């Protein structure tokens, strides 16, 4: 039996070890670092299945909780990081081209090490039950992301993305801390469990203070999960950042953000006066996010940017699930949606990397004729796009289905209507990619797309999982906490 805190500790130790290995030049090939990282994270992943009871030895019980939900998300984060590293290995040539170095390859080792630290931060984030802990974990994640987004120092768009993410991220962090101080002022607590106990006792005169703090925290977490109107960084940052980092941002960062949001909002749902306000805010945010994300995605021509808007749209569906949190199935529906979202988003990005390398860009037009160049890749992309759009017999369909069901049960008919309409527009923009692959002619000189063994194995597994869970969702539902 492993003490739960050792999971994060060992990820940090792994990161430090890799950093030292890089500093002392232990790894001849930089990709070796990635393989070590993958191996280490896989070991930690296995370790999550041998977790003992929550230990009190470090006086951490108030800060840190290990329940089924956090354990599920720890595994979620570990798998995401492993997939990001697999993708990064494929992406290495582009990194080496776009990072200035005295010797060839120098300066690209950290590209594999930073995700490990991010991973530790995300793992802490999903276990955090105290605002201080949430803040620290969030900062570890965000700061390491600033570096990763701006990693390609010769690429203007990457630098621009880094700057935008840094400034807007700092802004949102400011709001988070300010919100926490209001909570602390009104309740005298930073611990969510304690806040939950104190909340019903707060005099009505102090309610605006709590609501003020709540609004500010909602702003900060809305930034993390890309909810409208705090989503403006998303398209630019997604497009400019290195592709593996974009995938990481889109999946792991968003998922952890949602989990923290669920944890933070949960105490406030127990008090009716807060609940009503919160409910209204969430419904409005969900509505705006759904409409904006889906409509703005329609005219896009760049695939990464399209996925950025699509990630906003998916945040809309997830917020819909959050607004319906009163339903018994809503929490499970959100977690199911996030898991499906992991599969299909990583699948799309895993395919994007080799296609970008072979075609020299990440516009939708660079997918032209992929069905004839690499039918297997095109088929996998077809599955990813179909699942993102929510076609039946893919996991994406059931994700949306469960969310809509929960929203219906809660009487959120307007949101469900908006959801269904926007799903239809989603079909339009995802199928642009399919049209490019299957109906547009390939460029004259284009051959098959080269792809590494690991990536193709990962692509195969993800595509199969999307289909299997699309037919038999109970498989995943059984694993949900």
């Amino acid at each position, binding site marked *: 039996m492993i003490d739960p805190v050792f999971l994060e500790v060992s990820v*940090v130790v792994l990161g*430090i070890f890799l*950093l*030292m290995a*890089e*500093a*002392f030049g232990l790894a001849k090939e930089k990709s070796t670092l990635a393989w070590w990282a993958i191996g280490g994270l896989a070991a930690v992943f296995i370790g999550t299945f041998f977790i003992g009871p929550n230990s009190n030895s*470090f006086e951490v019980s108030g800060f840190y909780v290990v329940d089924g939900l956090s354990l599920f998300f720890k595994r979620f984060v570990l798998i995401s990081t492993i997939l990001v590293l697999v993708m990064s290995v494929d992406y290495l040539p582009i990194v080496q081209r776009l990072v200035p170095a005295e010797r060839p390859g120098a300066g690209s080792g950290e590209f594999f090490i930073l995700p490990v630290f991010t991973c530790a931060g995300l793992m802490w984030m999903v276990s955090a039950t105290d605002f201080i802990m949430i803040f620290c974990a969030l900062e570890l994640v965000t700061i390491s992301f600033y570096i990763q987004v701006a990693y390609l120092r010769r690429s203007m768009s990457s630098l621009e993305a880094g700057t935008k993410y840094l400034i807007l991220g700092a802004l949102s962090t400011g709001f988070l801390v300010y919100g926490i101080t209001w909570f602390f002022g009104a309740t005298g607590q930073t611990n969510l469990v304690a806040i939950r106990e104190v909340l019903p006792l707060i005099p009505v005169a102090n309610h605006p203070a709590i609501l003020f703090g709540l609004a500010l925290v909602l702003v900060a977490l809305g930034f993390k999960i890309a909810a409208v109107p705090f989503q403006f960084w998303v398209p630019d940052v997604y497009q400019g950042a290195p592709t593996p980092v974009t995938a990481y941002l889109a999946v792991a960062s968003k998922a952890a953000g949602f989990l923290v949001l669920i944890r933070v909002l949960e105490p406030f749902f127990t008090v009716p006066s807060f609940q009503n306000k919160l409910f209204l805010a969430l419904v409005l945010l969900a509505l705006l996010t759904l409409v904006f994300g889906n409509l703005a995605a329609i005219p896009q021509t760049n695939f990464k940017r399209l996925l950025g808007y699509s990630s906003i749209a998916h945040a809309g569906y997830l917020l819909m699930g959050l607004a319906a949190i009163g339903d018994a199935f809503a929490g499970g529906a959100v977690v199911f949606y996030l898991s499906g979202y992991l599969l299909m988003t990583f699948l799309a990005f895993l395919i994007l990397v080799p296609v970008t390398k072979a075609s020299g860009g990440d516009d939708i037009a660079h997918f032209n004729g992929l069905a004839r160049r690499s039918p297997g890749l095109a088929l996998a992309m077809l599955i990813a796009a179909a699942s993102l759009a929510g076609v039946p017999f893919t996991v994406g369909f059931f994700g949306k289905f469960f969310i809509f069901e929960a929203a219906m049960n809660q009487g959120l008919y307007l949101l469900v209507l908006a959801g269904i309409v926007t799903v239809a527009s989603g079909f339009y923009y995802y199928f642009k990619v399919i049209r490019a692959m299957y109906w547009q002619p390939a460029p004259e000189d284009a051959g098959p797309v080269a792809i590494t063994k690991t990536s193709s194995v990962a692509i195969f597994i993800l595509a199969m999982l999307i289909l299997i869970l699309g037919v038999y969702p109970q498989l995943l539902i059984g694993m949900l906490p």
Partner: protein
Amino acid sequence: MLQDYTPVLLHVIIAVGFATVAMIANIVLGRTGKRNPTKDSVYECGMVPEMAGQPRFSVKFYLVAMLFILFDIEIVFMYPWAVVYQDFIAESGTIILWSMLSFVLILLFGYVYAIKKGALDWSR
């Protein structure tokens, strides 16, 4: 309820109005003294600059400064730690010491990394 905000509205109107009036007055009245080359010459505006206004610092300066701040704050962090947990240390011994040591250790690894990467090597 909205009437409560009437003073605020008045305040805004006065602020905007004053600024507008002042700027328009400036334009209208300022026309009397037209610009000419003599008026724009150095004599009337100050000294002739001898170099670019802001000297460029080497980027290494920022790097070293940042590392300095990082380790400086580490030390600053230790003072309140030692004061706040004074009683705790007396009671239950070394566990809190180990926590702080592990924190320092992590920073130490960062320091080693910085040295190996040549961050403190000014000549490079």
